[in-house]
């Protein structure tokens, strides 16, 4: 089993994801430079990390979406392999059309870095199989454009297909507007595509995988995909 962490110019959380996979979970992981046009076959899961690819200029992810590697990411996903987009990675996957919706500016117009709680909505995906239904995870967010938006019909499709993975909630799992940090529609914090192999989430699981950093609620996401790959 091998992971690939894609590095765009401006990615900042590539080292953090690499650290969790290599040093915490001792898995085989390699960096993939955005100018590569061919990912080696033995890579099973690609991670698009958080950061400010291309400085977030024009729109978050708008320019990274045209990096040479993205054509390869699309092929990779079509082959049914697994793709995880965290924060800026989620924004890039939306711009590339691999995930539905758009990440707009937070309704507070401010960058927010703090711990929030998210409720697990669907445990039948490669990214949440180790979690329990309705489980509440404490995880940090760090973004200025995390306000997820989809139109009415897309929202209905996401809800019906169980494509909503996480919603912002209170510590005891109540999905209320008070618990919504950025104005995302239906408190959505993470979604998966219809086929179930491409995921995007705004909170940073890689920042809460070690007790010394205050918790291990993020581990469930990584251990799910590890177990799924077998």
């Amino acid at each position, binding site marked *: 089993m091998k992971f690939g962490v894609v590095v765009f110019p401006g990615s900042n959380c590539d080292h953090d994801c690499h650290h969790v996979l290599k040093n915490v979970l001792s898995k085989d992981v390699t960096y993939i430079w955005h100018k590569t046009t061919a990912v080696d076959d033995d890579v099973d899961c690609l991670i698009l990390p958080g950061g400010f690819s291309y400085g977030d200029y024009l729109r978050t992810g*708008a320019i990274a979406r045209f990096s040479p590697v993205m054509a390869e990411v699309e092929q990779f996903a079509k082959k049914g392999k697994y793709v995880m987009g965290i924060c800026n990675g989620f924004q890039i996957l939306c711009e590339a059309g691999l995930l539905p919706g758009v990440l*707009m500016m937070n309704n*507070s*117009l401010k960058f927010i870095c703090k711990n929030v709680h998210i409720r697990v909505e669907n445990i039948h995906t490669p990214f949440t199989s180790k979690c329990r239904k309705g489980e509440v995870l404490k995880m940090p967010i760090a973004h200025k454009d995390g306000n997820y938006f989809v139109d009415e019909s897309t929202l209905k499709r996401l809800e019906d297909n169980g494509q909503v993975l996480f919603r912002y909630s209170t510590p005891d799992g109540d999905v209320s507007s008070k618990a919504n940090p950025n104005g995302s529609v239906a408190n959505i914090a993470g979604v998966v595509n219809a086929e179930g192999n491409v995921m995007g989430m705004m909170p940073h699981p890689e920042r809460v995988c070690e007790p010394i950093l205050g918790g291990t609620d993020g581990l469930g996401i990584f251990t799910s995909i590890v177990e799924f790959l077998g």
Partner: protein
Amino acid sequence: MRFNVYVTLKRGVLDPQGKAVMDALHSLHFGEVRDVRVGKFIELNLDGLPEQEARARVEKMCQELLANPVIEEFRIEEVRA
């Protein structure tokens, strides 16, 4: 040859920036402001191309990069030198 591109949010899409600017204007006693919408204004300088062809190229730039079709619409204006 110069083109101006105006990228704005589609009607019905929430515009947090517009609302925040309006609130700020009200706090500065500009009570007459009813609504504010904030968009992007992009100036493009191109090599000389026949006008028709240039406009089509700019249209393509907007569809591919400059505007996000899900939530944004764009307007192109040629600037007479």
